[in-house]
């Protein structure tokens, strides 16, 4: 819980603190999550949005959390896009808030 990035996060953990920690990266920066988190929970615990940069779309942070709105798609450095609200976080995931090709 002492990750300085957490103050930028959106979600507040209310219970289940004692879970196994695991590491992932968001736009190349290392962060921690807890086993049982979805990608959405893990990312929004340390960042205000799942996706950003597209001027037409603005920033996105999910909307329905039940797989219906498709607001929560994210990219990975390798591999397919994923729906953050219905994908469990896994150790070593390398997540991106923009398409991989977009990187400077």
């Amino acid at each position, binding site marked *: 819980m002492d990750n300085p990035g957490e103050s930028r996060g*959106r*979600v*507040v*953990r*209310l*219970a*289940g603190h004692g*879970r*196994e920690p695991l590491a992932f990266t968001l736009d190349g920066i290392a962060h921690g999550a*807890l*086993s*049982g*988190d*979805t990608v959405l*929970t893990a990312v*929004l*615990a340390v960042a*205000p*949005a799942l996706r950003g940069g597209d001027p*037409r*779309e*603005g*920033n*996105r*942070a*999910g*909307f*329905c*959390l*039940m*797989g*219906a*709105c*498709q*607001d929560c798609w994210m990219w990975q450095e390798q591999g*397919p*896009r994923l729906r953050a*609200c*219905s994908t*469990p976080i896994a150790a070593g995931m390398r997540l991106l808030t923009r398409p991989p090709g977009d990187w400077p």
Partner: protein
Amino acid sequence: MTARPQVVVVGAGPAGIRAAEALASAGLVPLVIDEGERAGGQIYRRPPDALSRPPAVLYGSEAGKAVALHATFDRLVAQGRARHWPRCAVLAVAERSLQVLGPEGVSTVRFDRLVLATGATDRLAPVQGWDSPGVYSLGAMQVALKAQAVALGRRIVLAGSGPLLTLVATQLLAAGARLEAVLDTASLADQLRGLPDLMTRPSLTVRGLAMRARLARLYRPGVRLGAIETDARGPVAVTWHDAWGRPRRSPCDAVGLGWHLRAETQLAELAGCAFDFDETWRQWLPRGDAMGRGAEGVYLAGDGFRLRGADGAELSGRLAGAACLEDLGLPVQRTAADLAALSRVSRFAQGIARAFPWPRDMVRQTPDGTVVCRCEGVTAGMVRAAAAHGGADVNRAKSLGRVGMGRCQGRYCQIAGAEIVAAAAGHASPAQAGRLRGQAPVRPAPVAAIAGPAAAVDPLQGDR
């Protein structure tokens, strides 16, 4: 292989599980396809193992029902009397087969009979600023809490109407989240109008009032919503007028919105069901008989058929299973008691609809600059312009104005969009603006998955 008919149930919530149980009781082995990781549906959703908490914490007064339902389904699957494909989305229905997207890609599943228990999502109305990150559906607030033990913000405003508004608010408070306001667009007068029907289930009504009492002064009825003020990060406040017309402002960093539920009906449409506009629920619902017979070989149950809540879903699931068995000429248990119970539940649901109505006038008066379609950024002004060009028809408005064309396929804008189109044409009811025609796939699928060779899978043989 015997000639045992292949029945596929879509959805593993209370309706799907009870339908599967009824089918299994006659010796059929239904295949239950569900998008969730674990069976239970939205209302009785089970968190991942690492986040498991006692049922009383997760489901409150409904813990007994949740536990019984989960146990029933787990037993059916363990005994090989039902088959379960979790994490699978049905993309399309055609010619007695389903196109199913699962973890391993797309497959085709044949069926003789189909039970659709597809549930519902929140019914949304546009509010200025609702396209900002940090605005969620009420359902999302509840999923975050139950399945992930998180609050989606540090200071939360909930707004809308319906049983979920009060329920989510009390659940968040009990879990230690901070609420700034609970804003109900239904007036106390609206709520009194629903009371006679609500008293068909007095204990539920009393429980609802007790929850409301716990919210004390956070709860505000008869609210007129203004806007969600936002900065680049997300919401900073909600502006509103109270029941006496006084302007108010509630600072926040997250907002949950919802006006009761919207039936998830895309698959029913693709499966050939007819639709009627239901004025009570202010939405199009698939046509079906009391047992849930929708189209030839297609049965409907749960909130995707009629918005009757979890208890209604269990009853209608059992009835849909029974209807299917009856049509197959198989023995059926008595259904009279379930039918009677369901009619009581239906009357209560009507009371809910009346007490917490769709905010028709608010939606009709949506300011031109407010986004109606969150996916594509279509504003109310653009919808009105499209309606002026294309006539008062939602399908024309869709092709001209792109409302309903986004990623969510209209799930969160079509009801409001139709209301705005109808208002622009001077129609009292959105029924006169027509119904937005659905199309497959009902969930976005990776292009490769659709283009790839669809492996034909026999639900009785293909194991996963």
